[in-house]
């Protein structure tokens, strides 16, 4: 089907208009149907995607509208699928209906606004992952802020306003600085590779090789924006507030896909645009990532609030992803890609379960629970399953990503510090400690209060939204090969680009072209191909 990528991106936005016009119960149902249809449409993407086909000159299932800004600015609507974004897009569309279902009874007021914003948010996130024009990427990146701000601020907990404003301001500072870097990069690349026309086309920017001094400040501004989004220690302080205050649906989206926009941006833009600078600062990012892994785990252990514990565990888990990105080895990068998905599934499920408990008892304090295994066995089963996946038990999904990242970064010559990786490995153990400790406090022990004793177990709706996630945990744990195969050629190609670009001195060779296998210097007289 043609235009399938654009359809998957904009179907939720069209649905948002429908929900805006609906009334009563029809609002929820419209949202559910739209997200389900979007998910089915995204399966067409999976069906049409062939990992073996090279995306070196064009993404697959690309949609392109040129001349969006006129002839003077080479900014275009350019989206497509490659091995790096396909899993993230599928994760986004899968979480769509799950989030709608999880909000079914949780959201008590202003249904119409809530579901409308949720659908707009999904369009923003999918667009971020699919963009092949960095200006378009930026627009989608910022577009996700507005709905999330309202979702936290209107339907959140007691300190919702503080959390919402903090979330927006943190992200905004980073992304506005990235905007300056983006514009500067566009003008520089335009002069070097696009005949003096400002460009934000991903392929043109990749073919532009610049000296280290220029790379450095652009890289740092880009990386700052993404590091805030990830969030990388010490820029993580907005995350616990946002997560704890957000309604369940908001937390799931936030943990499941919004944070991945940061790590995805690092992979997709920072590495291939600024390879020298990325290597130069790799050690710094690796150290911060490892601090995040250990610190996040230790702080999780100290929480009394279950949702906050899960929030800090995200800091720890995403530290692994950042570590994998800056290791510059195929295994680690692949591990990072797969770990993004794993974290989305298992942390998403954890937030769902914590949200279900909150809906039943209206408290997130772990001390208010205890002995739930006797009263809600089915919920307990799902909780333990998810916890084990999140802690990286072999056979479940979490193990695959973390193992590949640790193995890959151990071999990494860029990081080159086995001691650091040893510290990172301790994060896996600590994850088991804080997660099992949470299970211990909430699900084992004695039932002490009537509210816990007569707590209703999962209903059909809740089962339906947890089941697909649990199935995926097992599938990705036992048979990760199909998932890894999707991203393998893309990650190899990305590292190849970096290697090729570093082989030439930017001062002499500012412009490269792809000859089918490698990037080679462009002949001076070769005309610049306008897309």
């Amino acid at each position: 089907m043609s235009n399938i990528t654009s359809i998957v991106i904009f179907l939720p936005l069209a649905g948002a208009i429908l929900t805006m016009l609906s009334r009563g119960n029809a609002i929820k149902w419209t949202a559910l149907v739209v997200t389900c249809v979007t998910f089915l449409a995204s399966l067409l993407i999976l069906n049409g995607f062939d990992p073996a086909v090279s995306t070196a000159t064009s993404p697959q299932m690309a949609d392109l509208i040129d001349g969006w800004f006129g002839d003077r600015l080479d900014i275009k609507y350019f989206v497509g699928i490659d091995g790096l974004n396909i899993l993230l897009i599928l994760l986004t569309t899968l979480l769509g209906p799950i989030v709608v279902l999880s909000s079914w009874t949780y959201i008590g007021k202003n249904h119409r606004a809530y579901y409308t914003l949720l659908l707009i948010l999904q369009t923003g996130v999918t667009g971020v992952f699919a963009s092949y024009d960095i200006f378009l990427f930026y627009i989608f990146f910022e577009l996700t802020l507005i709905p999330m701000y309202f979702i936290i601020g209107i339907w959140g907990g007691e300190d919702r306003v503080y959390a919402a404003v903090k979330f927006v301001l943190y992200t905004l500072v980073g992304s506005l600085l990235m905007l300056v870097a983006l514009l500067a990069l566009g003008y520089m690349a335009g002069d070097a590779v696009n005949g003096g026309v400002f460009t934000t086309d991903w392929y043109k920017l990749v073919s532009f090789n610049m000296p280290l001094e220029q790379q450095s400040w652009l890289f740092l501004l880009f990386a700052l924006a993404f590091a805030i989004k990830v969030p990388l220690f010490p820029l993580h302080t907005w995350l616990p507030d946002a997560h704890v205050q957000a309604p369940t649906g908001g937390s799931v989206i936030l943990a499941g896909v919004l944070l991945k926009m940061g790590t995805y941006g690092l992979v997709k833009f920072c590495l291939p645009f600024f390879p020298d600078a990325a290597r130069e600062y790799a050690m710094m990012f690796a150290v911060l990532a490892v601090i995040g892994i250990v610190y996040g785990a230790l702080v999780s252990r100290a929480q009394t609030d279950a949702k906050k514990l899960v929030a800090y565990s995200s800091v720890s888990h995403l530290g692994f992803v950042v570590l994998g990105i800056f290791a510059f080895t195929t295994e680690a990068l692949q591990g990072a890609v797969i770990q993004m998905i794993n974290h989305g599934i298992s942390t998403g499920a954890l937030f769902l379960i914590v949200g279900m408990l909150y809906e039943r008892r209206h408290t997130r304090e772990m001390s208010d629970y205890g002995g739930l295994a006797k009263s809600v066995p089915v919920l307990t089963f799902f909780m333990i399953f998810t916890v084990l996946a999140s802690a990286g038990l072999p056979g479940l999904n979490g193990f695959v990503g973390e193992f590949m990242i640790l193995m890959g970064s151990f071999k990494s010559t860029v990081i080159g510090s086995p001691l650091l990786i040893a510290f990172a490995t301790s994060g896996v153990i600590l994850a088991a400690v804080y997660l099992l400790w949470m299970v211990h406090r909430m699900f084992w022990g004695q039932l002490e209060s009537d509210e816990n004793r007569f707590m209703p177990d999962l209903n059909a709706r809740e089962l339906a939204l947890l089941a697909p996630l649990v199935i995926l945990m097992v599938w990705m744990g036992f048979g990760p090969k199909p998932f890894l195969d999707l991203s393998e050629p893309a990650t190899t190609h990305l590292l190849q680009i970096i290697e090729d670009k570093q082989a030439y001195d930017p001062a002499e060779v500012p412009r490269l072209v792809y000859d089918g296998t490698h990037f080679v210097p462009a002949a001076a007289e070769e005309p610049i191909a306008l897309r």
Partner: protein
Amino acid sequence: MDLTNAYANLPADLLASAPMVLLAILGLVAVVIDSFSNDTPWVPRLAGIGLGLAFVWELTRIADPAGTAFYGMIRTGGYASFVNMIILLGAGLSVELCGPYLSRIKHNYGEVYAIVLFATVGMMLLGTANNLVAVFVGLETMSISLYILTGLVRDDEGAIESALKYFLLGAFATGFFLYGIALIYGATGSFDLMEIGAAVAANGTSVLFWAGVGLLLVGFFFKVSAVPFHMWTPDVYQGAPTTITGFMSTASKTAGFASLILVLYTAVPAAGVTQVLAIVALITMVLGNILAIAQTNVKRMLAYSSVAHAGYVLVGLAAGTPEGYSGALYYMLIYTLMNIGAFGVIALLEWDEKGGREQTLDSLAGIGHRKPLLGWTMVVFMFSLSGFPPFGGFMGKVAVFGPAIDSGLIWLAICGVLASAISAYYYLRVLVVFFMKTEDEVRVPVATGAFPVPMTSAAVLVVCAAALVVLGVYPQLLELTESYFSAASVAALP
């Protein structure tokens, strides 16, 4: 100046400036009607129709080649029509908002509309003037009309104080401006912008010339409320009737910036003023946004916000390139839409019967849920003002910051985006109060009025919001604004 053909050229000149002539005549007619039939609803209708016609007239001419009329006194063609279009848009939307608002505060006088029309004519003359004398005449026509409009609520001490303050400080700035014109005339021997430019190119610049330019800039900075000449802005914006504030803050700034762009583009070597403009832009953005944070009154907050926005436009001017000027022009169009919208919402939500002067933001807690139309259009205006995509404010910022980065003013762009991150804090606070606070969470009495929304006002808000979305996702107009500064359009001038 050879005037032998004056009468022969008159019909063509009048046609070239038809909207200005039309509005001036309508203003006079409005005065006559009002003196026979006091405060009849026909006066605002007449003004609305006239402004609408003039708007359409200019809209059809925004791609015309550049030219001049009245012996090079004013510019005609694309640039002039585009500027006039923004001014007329601001005036037209404000007049539509004024009717119901002024009726509600019981000051809906017929002469208001006549004065608005005269002010608009002044702005159009200022924005398109190609001669420093015409610049001055336009500036004064506009300013004197605005002094009167500020003191419209004449039985209120606060409004009178605002008007007097505006008048005294404005007169002072006019003095600087006039002296600047005199010095430039002394240095170059001409009032005509093109001739001044030619004289500078031929003979170089002198201290006298730069002194004149400096004084001229002071006058312009005052009119567009750039720091440190912004002191009047918060008081005047707070004291004037809210819809009139919307008019003042947009159309008069557009005229001022349009004129400043012409002066910089045609008469002053860009390299000489870049640093000054950059520094003024920097302190305007930073100070405007920081002072806005501290405000509890919405009108005052929006006043400081409009100071900050003048700073963003100055970033485009500091770039000193055609792209920068064109970005600044585009920004003024977007700024007009979002600011009129924001003041329009605030005007409809006014309940203190003192022109909103004593109304705190917190008193509007939860209003967004009770008045969804006002709430959600305000969402668009606030996000646009803080520069979020996909709204126009974002494209406007890209259009001014981009050329500045291209000219090497990266430090200025970085400071600018950080300042606009500060601005997000207070713009979002409006939305926090509108949507996220409940009545028992604020410590002030909450507005309980019914806040009727007349159809025309609702239409104005929806039009502004929709236009902001369109201009935000489809910024091709930038290509047009840039064509005004191409070599061809300069060469076409006699």
